[in-house]
């Protein structure tokens, strides 16, 4: 209990700290919204004052004397309408200001978080689950700034309370003291309510995220679910979480059911007490009937907005957690360091030197253990190795997605770590095993914003054997691919991904098993085109991760990888002769087919 209270204290303090960050970032909007809220608060009280004034100076005298001056009636209308108009202005400033500040703060943080995503090194990405990073940039930011909406209202309420209390004291000290008991009671009950409900709210928030994760994963794997007929099990998994969420919501609802009427009744009971006390004060001549009305009215109108303070505090637990998560991304360091070197302008193939590379993701299972090889300008090297031998890791090191634990990679003699930002991607292009598509047009996906003529785009598509299906799309290059290009087949995505690399005319092209989803016929045509291309113009250097002999035989040299080490280098023919392990790996199809059929 003690630690719990301590924790709560910290949450409140941290909650205010988060708000302070927002206030410092958007001081103007905050000031406007708060002034609006204060205006609203003052005028809500003024409303009671106008009613009291009207009672005192117009209503009672009129009934007593049986006459009224028209000018007084005009005053009544003017006062009420003036107050109403100013209050409307206050509402607009408060709510619109609060809203704008809330959206802007979300935008600021989102820009910051996504900038981090783009600058932080790949290792950082690998350490953090995708789902977490996505929610850091969406729901966590939303939660972090959620107290901003009720903030101006709460501040305005404080001002309103002060004014109301002063006014009540001016009207009648005794009644004011009675009324004053109501405010702390409302605040106290509110805090009690927050105490019971906020853990449930936080829990519900977490459960909502879990329900969403299950749905996301399950829909992503819809095909597996369908093919294995696991709809019932998946629904059970989802239902269990949905029911847990339901039960928490119902529990939170029951607590609310207790506190809602309690909070509504407190001021009502206060009014009754004020009436009783007021009447006795009027009877003894200590106060005027108008004052009784004023105090009673003040109590009713101020009590409801007091709850805004509760709403504000109620958002704090969610806000603090959300802010911490987003802040963890914002504070993450270890961006990839870049140097100042430039690669000399050249249109010929690049020279790649890989020198004693070591790399491990998990120290117990090193992925690369001293890899050495080089690719001479304009030459083609095939990386060959069994599944999980470290080939893909090597390609991500060569494109500097990650840096090695030790060892050096040089392009044209420059250590890639010393190159300035953007220099390596200009020279080196990687076509990964799994193609990623942006939610953009075909053109956008190929050019990635580079200023490229359509003719060049088509040429790249032709080389990648993608021109046929792109031409058949309803709007050709302008066809939008939708989220992650799910409207395309795997092979089509791979070919677009290949065109994306080709259109940039890289000096070193790395293909990481980039044609695995393409038919051999189509692959053969792609490889032939690559070759033609190389013969026609400047020959790019080429590194291919491949299994197919057609691909391998195209290489000037083969690097045979096994368990993170280079175990053989040479031409395909040399390796076939000298290395039984290599022969077994690449001849698998033949030896197998030879056995039963035996062909020429």
């Amino acid at each position, binding site marked *: 209990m003690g630690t719990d209270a301590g924790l709560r204290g910290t949450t409140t303090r941290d909650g205010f700290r988060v708000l302070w960050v927002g206030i410092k970032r958007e001081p103007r909007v905050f000031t406007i919204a708060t002034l609006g809220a204060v205006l609203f608060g003052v005028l809500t009280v003024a409303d009671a004052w106008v009613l009291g004034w009207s009672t005192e100076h117009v209503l009672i005298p009129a009934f007593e004397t049986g006459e009224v001056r028209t000018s007084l009636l005009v005053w009544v209308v003017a006062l009420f309408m003036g107050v109403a108009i100013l209050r409307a202005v206050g509402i607009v400033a408060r709510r619109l200001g609060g809203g704008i500040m809330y959206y802007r703060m979300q935008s600021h943080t989102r820009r910051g978080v996504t900038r981090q995503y783009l600058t932080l090194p790949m290792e950082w990405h690998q350490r953090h689950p995708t789902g977490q990073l996505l929610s850091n940039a969406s729901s966590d930011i939303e939660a972090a700034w959620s107290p901003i909406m009720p903030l101006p209202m709460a501040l305005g309420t404080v001002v309103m309370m002060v004014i109301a209390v002063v006014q009540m004291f001016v009207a009648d000290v005794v009644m004011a003291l009675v009324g004053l008991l109501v405010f702390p009671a409302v605040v106290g009950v509110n805090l009690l309510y927050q105490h019971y409900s906020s853990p449930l709210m936080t829990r519900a928030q977490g459960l909502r995220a879990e329900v969403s994760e299950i749905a996301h994963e399950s829909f992503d794997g819809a095909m597996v679910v369908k093919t294995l007929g696991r709809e019932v099990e998946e629904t059970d998994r989802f239902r269990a979480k949905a029911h847990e969420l339901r039960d928490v919501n119902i529990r939170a609802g029951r607590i609310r059911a207790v506190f809602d009427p309690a909070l509504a009744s407190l001021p009502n009971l206060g009014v009754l007490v004020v009436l009783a006390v007021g009447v006795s004060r009027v009877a003894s001549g200590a106060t005027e009937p108008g004052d009784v009305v004023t105090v009673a009215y003040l109590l*009713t109108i101020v009590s409801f907005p007091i709850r805004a303070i509760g709403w504000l505090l109620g958002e704090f637990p969610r806000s603090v957690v959300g802010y911490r998560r987003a802040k963890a991304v914002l504070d993450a360091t270890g961006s990839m360091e870049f140097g100042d070197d430039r690669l000399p302008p050249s249109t010929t193939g690049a020279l790649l030197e890989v020198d004693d590379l070591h790399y491990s993701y998990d120290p117990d299972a090193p992925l690369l253990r001293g890899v050495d090889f080089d690719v001479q300008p304009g030459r083609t090297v095939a990386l060959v190795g069994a599944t999980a031998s470290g080939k893909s890791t090597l390609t991500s090191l060569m494109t500097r997605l990650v840096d090695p634990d030790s060892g050096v990679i040089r392009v044209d003699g420059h250590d890639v770590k010393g190159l300035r930002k953007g220099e390596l991607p200009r020279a080196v292009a990687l076509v990964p095993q799994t193609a990623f598509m942006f939610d953009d047009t075909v053109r956008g996906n190929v050019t990635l914003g580079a200023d490229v003529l359509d003719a060049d785009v088509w040429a790249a598509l032709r080389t990648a054997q993608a021109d046929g299906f792109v031409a058949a799309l309803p709007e050709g290059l302008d066809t939008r691919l939708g989220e992650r290009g799910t409207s395309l087949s795997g092979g089509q995505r791979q070919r677009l991904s290949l065109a994306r690399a080709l259109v940039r005319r890289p000096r070193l092209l790395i293909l990481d098993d980039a044609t695995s989803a393409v038919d051999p016929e189509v692959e053969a045509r792609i490889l032939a085109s690559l070759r033609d291309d190389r013969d026609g113009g400047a020959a790019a250097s080429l590194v291919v991760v491949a299994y197919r002999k057609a691909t391998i035989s195209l290489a000037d040299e083969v690097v045979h990888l096994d368990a993170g080490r280079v175990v053989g280098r040479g031409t395909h023919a040399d390796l076939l002769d000298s290395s039984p392990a290599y022969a077994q790996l690449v001849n698998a199809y033949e030896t197998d087919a030879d056995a039963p059929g035996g062909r020429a």
Partner: protein
Amino acid sequence: MTVTTDPTAATSGTRMDSGETIGAMATIRLGMKYSPELREGLRATLVLAVLASCGQIVVPIAVQQTLDRGLNAPGGPRLDYVLWMGVLAALAIAVTSWASYLMTARLFTTSERGLATLRTKAFRHVHDLPLLTQNTERRGALVSRVTSDVDQVSQFLVFGGLIFVVSIGQMLVATVLMVVYSWQLALVVWLAFAPLFVSIRWFQRKLSAAYTVVRRQVGVLLGAISEPVVGAAVVRTYGVEARTQERIDTAIQDWQDAYTHAQTYTVTSFSLGGLSAGLANAGVIVIGVLLGFTGDMTPGKVLAFAFLVTLFVGPVQMGTQILTDAQNAIASWRRVLGILETPADLVDPGPDGEVLPRGPIDVRFADVGFSYPDGPPVLREIDLTIGAGTRVAIVGETGSGKSTFAKLLTRLMDPVDGAVLLDGVDVRRIDARSLRRSVVLVPQEGFLFDDTIAANVRYGRLDASEDEIRASAVELGVDDWLAALPKGLHTQVGQRGESLSAGERQLVALLRAHLADPDLLVLDEATSAVDPALEMQIGRALERLMQSRTSVTIAHRLSTAESADEVIVVDKGRVVQRGPHSELVTQAGSVYAGLHASWVSQHSRA
């Protein structure tokens, strides 16, 4: 192929019922149908709500009574009367508070129960939708229909729906009371609020349009912020950080603008209520004073009226607010119901369906034709039989219709013409559980759940022990790979299995299928990312394991075709050749001979 062509419409091209054609009242009726819990005890809850709302009029009445009979009583203030009235009022407050408690608790219970049911039904229905429909929808949009959309409805039902009804009730009660006090003043109040009531519809339309834009921008924003995460590697290798950031910044700005725009309408409509209230108050005092001269008005009555006006203003403001939220909630409800209203055309015959006997399955395609909606035919007049226990390879160029063949065979889609029969029974008449038990497809991109390898493999047979999984791995010849993993079967595969390489993911998927022990196994390029030696090893293992089953393999590596009992060659949606490899390869000039020549040229010794 369905492709999004409208750059502004995030969900265009969808085959999912958006529910947009369902009217507001129809939505509520339909919602009640799918969540019968919502109806339970609704009447009692409504009675409690009315009782609870009476609590709001206790104090104004007490004030009026105090002023007229206690304070301004003939012969001076009467304290005893005021005290008694206070006690009575306090009792009334206690009773109405109790009613309020019961109402809220019941409301939460029924709404949450009803919505949990709706959520689960919608979730299940998504899985019952045809693959084609699932693929036309953004994953995020689909997820939000069973998450945030349902939450939106829940908020509305709990804080809006009934409170709206009660607010209207309160407005009516306040009006009746006002008329009882003075019909003239009641008229004044209504006239003051007339402009607000008239403008509500206009605001509704504006808000509805504004929130449609908001929702779209939320979708665009979520898509944009996923790119630097999901596409982290591509963004880096191509050095397009600046462009990606620009796209995100645009999405963020558009999102912010959309929300600000919507908020402007919300705020304006809300502030109008305050103006009407000011007008009403002024009118009550002025007209009240003037009426006083005709003699049927007392100061107490006028003041009580002033309180009654607050009583009237409260529900009106509340009602306006709820109507605003209702736009959103009804739209959300429609989207959830839209899922359930989208026909699941792969209807499971259920208990009436036939159950396939265990043992090798005999397959027959009876004059099967298939085309995607509004698309050209993909398969035409496919008429063939695959005998029980045979191993068949399907080959053909990209786009020839091979994968469609696999999807029809495993009933991921139903044919447009003709029928697919397993053991002589139309697949549409086979009980779904029986079908999935006997027929298993291993697709090229084997999806893995964010769990261990063991859990993913067990997806094929839920009660499999770890020993059985290990035994399967040995049978399939992938035990060496498994043993080399630092944590073996307990290795976490990451989201969508991304911690493993594409080849390793395929191994897990194969293991999963093998454990499922099907009678008909369909492999759709299931080992395309595995190295040749391992692939051949698996191929030989499968050959052995498939002896008592039927297997259909779609392969672009013709080595698979060479070892199959029979090869079926598909070209431009038709079967053009059939027979064993040795026979087909000799048919000079045939499609298969061409494919084979190309294969050989790629794999022969260089």
